[in-house]
């Protein structure tokens, strides 16, 4: 028991160090080469250096790279945590915010806000939130009394996902070419426009969600083994499942509103984390969050440095890596 606890602590420390190291390394990678030492100096000093080149480097780090790196970290953490918890409460290894239509709902809400109401900023966030929550409510309504049967809940979620995606395609179809292009880019996800003042809301929601998941860690772990066991241990299974779905929906919607649709992270990161530290939520939650952050930071680095003078949409990179991961996982699965 103690040996396992020790191993878990080592993983956690390693992961925290990896997050810090990833942030530092990612700061120095980009179209303008900035040495690690310069990045480090910029980070811990006021960027008011007399040398104009230093000043430019520090401005790039403080105003462009750091906000987007932190947004990537928050996004990776949030989507991975939501995926882990959705997989646990539905006992389905394929569950993630996409499967339930949460991402589709949030995207539809955001796209509607952008096109129909010509919204920006807070309107998009409100639209994404409404869309995400609407998708969950629709799922619960359609599932009706079957909401307590996980399989039917999942199937309702899949149906909702397709329905909302169809609506989104309809909006795209009727948009002008310019709007359709920018919407398509937005839907593929990007950290390009992340600013310091964009970080607060996703950070607060992801942190709140993670705290909620941690509070209910024991109950969620039990639900993984079956509703019968959970009920026999005094856990209000149905209320917990619906509550957790809503928390995941809100978390995902806020993320989608800020960075667009990014798939596969919520699906694959929890699997890797479980492989390392086991299935119990109390062990795997923190590892998933940290691993998700590291992964997304490096996806962003790849997206902005793979092609010269061009930034790839994040969704393309995560989906490409995600599908390769999936093939490996299927191969390993007995």
């Amino acid at each position, binding site marked *: *028991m103690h*040996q*396992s606890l020790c191993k878990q602590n080592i993983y956690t420390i390693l992961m925290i160090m990896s997050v810090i190291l990833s942030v530092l390394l990612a700061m120095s990678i980009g179209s303008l080469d900035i040495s690690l030492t310069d990045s480090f100096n910029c980070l811990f000093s006021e960027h008011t250096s007399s040398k104009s080149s230093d000043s430019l480097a520090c401005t790039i780090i403080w105003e462009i790279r750091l906000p987007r790196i932190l947004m990537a970290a928050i996004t990776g953490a949030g989507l991975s945590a939501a995926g882990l918890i959705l*997989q*646990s409460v539905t*006992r*389905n*290894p394929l569950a993630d915010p996409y499967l339930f239509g949460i991402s589709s709902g949030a995207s539809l809400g955001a796209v509607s806000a952008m096109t129909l109401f010509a919204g920006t900023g807070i309107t998009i966030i409100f639209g994404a939130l409404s869309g995400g929550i609407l998708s969950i409510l629709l799922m619960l309504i359609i599932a009706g009394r079957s909401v307590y049967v996980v399989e039917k809940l999942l199937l309702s979620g899949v149906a909702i996902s397709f329905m909302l995606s169809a609506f989104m395609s309809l909006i795209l179809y009727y948009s002008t070419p310019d709007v359709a292009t920018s919407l398509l880019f937005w839907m593929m996800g990007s950290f390009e426009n992340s600013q310091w003042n964009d970080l607060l809301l996703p950070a607060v929601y992801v942190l709140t969600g993670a705290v909620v998941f941690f*509070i*209910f860690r*024991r*109950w969620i*772990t*039990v639900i*993984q*083994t*079956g509703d*019968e*066991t959970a*009920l*026999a*241990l*005094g*856990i*209000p299974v149905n209320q917990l499942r619906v509550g957790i779905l809503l928390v995941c929906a809100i978390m995902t919607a806020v993320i989608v509103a800020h960075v667009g649709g990014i798939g596969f992270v919520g699906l694959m990161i929890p699997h890797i984390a*479980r492989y390392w530290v*086991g*299935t*119990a939520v109390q*062990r795997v939650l923190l590892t998933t969050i940290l691993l998700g952050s590291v992964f997304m930071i490096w996806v962003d680095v790849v997206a902005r440095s793979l092609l010269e003078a061009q930034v790839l949409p994040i969704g393309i990179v995560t989906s490409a890596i995600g599908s390769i991961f999936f093939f490996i996982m299927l191969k390993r699965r007995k």
Partner: protein
Amino acid sequence: MSKNLPDKAIMTVDNLSWQVDQLSILKQISFDLMPEEVVGIIGPNGSGKSSLLKCIYRRYQDFTGRVSLCGKPTEDYQQRQLAKNLAVVSQEPESNFEIKTIDIVRMGLVPHKGLFEFDNKNDENKLSQALAKVDLLNKSEQLFSSLSGGEKQRALIARALVQEPNIFLMDEPTNHLDIQHQIEIMQLIRQLGIGTIVTMHDLNLAANFCDRLILLNNGEIVVQGSIEEVLNSEHIAKVFEVQVRVDKNPFSQLPQIALNYHQSGREG
């Protein structure tokens, strides 16, 4: 196997009936459970054994009649309070996620821990003691799915022990186990000294390890009482529709059922 039991019932089932869509699943079931007593529920498939257990721990709540624990109706207990008094050991369904044995056993802490509480040294000791009691201490870090059938049952019993209940409800704990492990699990249940209701299919095993038996058929109690009262050829032939001869087990002197495996049809 019978012993001197205290006469105050820790659980009373009074006139319990349960139906689903006009179909009666359980009809007017009444019985008591004494402290440290092991009561076996036997009967053919579909006779209502598992449903009865589920009504007792309020998995099904829309039954009529009353189940009382220590004199208090179960409907007056919050589900979590109920879980502190009643531990359920049933077949664990296959999970899509691999989980360590220690984490399965740790689940027994759930009814006792607040959402904001962390596991402490005392909890870790409880887990170690429960694992030691079922002889699985050396397998605590192994995946639950890698354990043998008997070990899995012992791990589930360890989880139930961590719940520190007054009553065990066990749904066919010896299912799919070989005879050695069947005996091992039943001996363990006896050693625990906790009032237990156990559903069983193996009548000879029930005869040797239960204090009393309840024979169910079509949701009704056909007969309940001592092993000798319940396990006679007339009752078994009538309920299971098989030809039997009831002898005495040469080791325990308790009833032993011999079946006629070559009977023609289901003529009793």
